[in-house]
């Protein structure tokens, strides 16, 4: 008696190459209170990948424990103002288990008038 059943075991491999962005965070990371990574881990990561470019700001918020922010942003605009805007917007999207990545661009427009001699 012969066994006519056919048995095969194969693996399919799919590879997708994309460029790893350095740093992997953009301008902001909002870290939830129960997120898998905490502020200190994020700070260490940022410091290792982009030394002296980011700061961690711990905040008193029910869902968000801290915000990692690009230093240049808080050099351009007052930290409290930026945080207030970020939190107003993020509060609707974020839960305490999430880490949210955000881009924040500041465009400054200046118009000055001078007296013509």
């Amino acid at each position, binding site marked *: 008696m012969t066994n006519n059943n056919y048995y095969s075991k194969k693996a399919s491999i799919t590879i997708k190459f994309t460029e790893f962005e350095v740093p992997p965070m953009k301008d902001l990371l909002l870290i939830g209170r129960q997120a*898998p*990574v*905490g502020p*200190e*881990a994020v700070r260490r990561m940022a410091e290792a990948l982009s030394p002296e470019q980011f700061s961690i700001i711990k905040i008193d918020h029910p869902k968000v424990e801290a915000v990692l922010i690009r230093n240049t942003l808080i050099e351009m605009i007052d930290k409290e103002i930026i945080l207030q805007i970020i939190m107003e917007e993020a509060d609707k999207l974020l839960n305490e288990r999430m880490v949210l990545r955000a881009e924040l661009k500041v465009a400054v427009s200046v118009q000055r008038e001078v007296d013509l001699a």
Partner: protein
Amino acid sequence: MKVETFMCRQLYGVSSGKSAQYAAEKMNELKVGSLVVFEEGKVVGIVTSRDIRAAHPNRIVADVMTANPLSIHKNAFIGQALAMMEENEVERLLVMDDHEVIGIVTRETLREEIGKNIDPLTGLYRASYIEYLYNFLVEQQTRFHLFFLDLNNFGEINKKYSHIFGNEVLTHFANRLKEICQDGDYLCRYGGDEFVVITKREQSELQFFYEQMKRPIAYKNVAISFSVGFLNGNLHDLFAKSYEESIREASLLSTKAKFYAKER
């Protein structure tokens, strides 16, 4: 009753970069409730099983630990250590010998130890505790004052109204003392109907304290009075006297006060 006596000398550590999950497994394996967190050889925190339970297991220990943990010197009095933990709502203190961490002490251990020195009837300290406290203050050269209070006619109250009633009088009196005491006052039922109060109050506060103490008090219409022997730490060199000598002196002063009160 120094902290050193009750601390755990075995310190188990974890690096701040390890995961909370790793720390939890290590605590389970070692059967301990906390680990000291090290970073480049320095102590930077304590992580407890409670911290771990409240955090995501993927977090690193640095994000879960209590940073800059409170510490206390090995020679500190255990009451001081317990008060520090309760005030700061922490369960553990690092025990230091100058700048070196030599152990860890828990609130549970100290509570248990101090509990052994509590008089079950009145909830005040026993004489043994106040003796340790006295010797500790002398050793630390901390100025203090000592009151010896002796209830008047307590034997007659017992005979007339029963011992159960007498016990209620003692409890009532102890509660009155607790009401007027504050941080830095230590109450003790020295024995029977005798009480000792050690206080670190300033000289200017002593008169008020004494007046509060002497306010008329009664229990179920039975007046409670007592005699006081007082050793003012500013006038008596308590640092040069042993505990026994001071108690004897204060006790004699209260007996004299009782005698004069009867004479009047």
